[in-house]
């Protein structure tokens, strides 16, 4: 019989590895595929936990995450990118190798923080992983200088928070999870609308065109 710990350890490793790969990808298509992979591991983890603990609502949430984050959002992003001839090459302040090491350092720090500062949880492995995902998402948000990179950074962070919910509370109430996923779908729709507008206005999704409003 596989224990919950083994499952958590296995999926944590897979998620962290795919997130590390994700932050260093500079081509749009492999960037989105890596995000898809990360979300796939996340939803499988939710499904596995739900199955082993016999929690029906976790299984339902896992399926919803599968539909929204693995199928709908990546599909939506790729289609829009193809239709509008968006430049495949993404932009970043920092070189991919430097991002890789920064990512490794953040993962280390997250685990350190989870072990030392957050008291009273059995699941420190899941906790460390989720903090690391949040940090990697923020790293993407700060380092990328194109709209897609920042939007995916936000999604990675959201994945980390979802995992945090699993690790700390066994998932939020079902209604709240549905609300959060609904907000996420609207968020992505808005992001796409803004990307389309940027492409129409500047023929570019780089954020260097979005730096005029200063005092």
């Amino acid at each position, binding site marked *: 019989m596989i224990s919950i710990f083994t499952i958590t350890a296995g999926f944590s490793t897979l998620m962290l590895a795919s997130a590390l790969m994700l932050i260093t990808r500079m081509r749009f298509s492999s960037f989105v595929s890596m995000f898809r992979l990360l979300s796939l591991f996340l939803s499988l983890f939710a499904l596995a936990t739900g199955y082993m603990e016999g929690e029906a609502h976790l299984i339902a949430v896992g399926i919803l995450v599968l539909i929204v984050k693995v199928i709908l959002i990546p599909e939506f992003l790729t289609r829009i990118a193809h239709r509008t001839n968006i430049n495949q090459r993404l932009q970043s302040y920092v070189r991919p190798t430097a991002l890789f090491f920064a990512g490794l350092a953040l993962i280390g720090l997250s685990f350190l923080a989870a072990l030392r500062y957050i008291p009273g949880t059995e699941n420190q492995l899941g906790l460390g992983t989720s903090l690391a995902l949040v940090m990697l998402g923020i790293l993407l948000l700060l380092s990328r200088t194109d709209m897609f990179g920042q939007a995916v950074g*936000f999604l990675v962070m959201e994945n980390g928070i979802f995992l945090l919910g699993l690790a700390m509370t066994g998932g939020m109430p079902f209604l709240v999870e549905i609300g959060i996923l609904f907000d996420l779908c609207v968020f992505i729709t808005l992001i796409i609308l803004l990307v389309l507008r940027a492409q129409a206005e500047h023929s570019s999704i780089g954020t260097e065109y979005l730096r005029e*409003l200063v005092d």
Partner: protein
Amino acid sequence: MILTLFILCVLAVLAALLLPHARSIFSVVSILSTAIFAAAGFVAVPIMLGIAPALQWGFWYLDPFASTFLLVISFLQWTATLASVPYLGYELHEREIALADVRRYFALLNAFVLSMMFSVSVNNLGLMWVALEATTLATTLLVAFYPRKGSLEAAWKYIVLCSTGISLGLIGLLLTYNAASGTGGSIDWTYLLSLAPTLSPGMMKLAFIFVLIGYGTKVGLVPMHAWLPDAHSRAPAPISALLSGVLLNAALFSIIRYKMLVDGALHASDWTNWLLLFFGVLSCIVPAAFILIQTDYKRLLAYSSIEHMGITTMLFGLGPVGTLAAIIHLVGHALIKSMLFFGAGNILLAFKSTKFERVGDVLRRMPYTGGFFLFGLLALLAVPPSPLFLSEVLLFSGLVGAHPYALTIVALALALIGAGFFMRIMPMLFSPAGESMRETREGFDVSHAAMALHAALVVAFGFALWSGGLSVISFIASSIH
């Protein structure tokens, strides 16, 4: 009855999307928004006056504090809808926008109002988070409403910064849920409040830090305020009025809900008060610098909103008297700032610019708008009988004993802001302008009626505070402890 409110909002969204002409959209949406205000008043006023007990039913919970917010939101959506009619009507006439834009505007406006009213009246902290995120999503396209330079940037900053911030707030919620787990699994606020003394203090402290940073981004607390001046200056004026008047307040409302839980867990309020004071003081000094060098009157008003949210946050950190003053300040600021934004909208329509250098002689050329703008300006600077006078006096008296250094800094910041307002806005109102101005004399329209209503309420509120109104406010404040 609460459901009626939400149904009316949904009807207004549908009306905006389905009705055939701009004229019919204007009238139906105005009628529905009046109905929303009336219904909210019917629910909220008895609870605020203590005639009816706090309402707890199904998902909903309305104590006097939440009812106050509900009433302010419904009132401002009413006047903002009324002020939108001449504003959009003028732009339609000038062919700057089309019928599709009017539909989009009112549909999003009502979705925004719906999510705000939802967020203050829902008991479940998770759904409160969902509603607050929904307010960001509903307003993003309103910030990007005009195809002008900079509005895309403002909308992008707005959605990315606010969504990221509020996601950190979600971490705070998860920590709170974890602190309460093993006790039934509900995240209803009333339930958590009854458990508060048993919650783990360490976990709740950590949760509050995330909540304050996260929801504080939406309140516009410095240093998480970067989105605010851009979003306020790019959105259509009635939307800026709603953003400033009630959206920031709704986010602050959630922080206060969490503060009560954390205070319960710590058996003291010193720790949370200290954090609120810290961010409040910071949010007073930074805008002071930007107001002094400002060249754009909508951005100036936006920075002033940051300052006033800072003052309110500080007041919430000053114990029971502070809480009383905070409620006065919230309501007063909401009324005054939205009125100023309505005025700013009229000035923008007339002069086609938000820069001070392009605008002048407003009082002579636009006597109604200019007059109300001047009134609002003085009320915002807490000239009596403005209700803000009392709340700022209480702020100073609260700070003088406990935090003399903070008092010095805040007094200096407020003096600079007053100077900045006079230096920037007085020339705009009184000095002769450039040429870019239509010469027709300004007529009195619905937007002036809305401003007049706000002005009358500000004066009435100010006088009521000296003659018995204070007992109502202290009853409302007593529901926050």
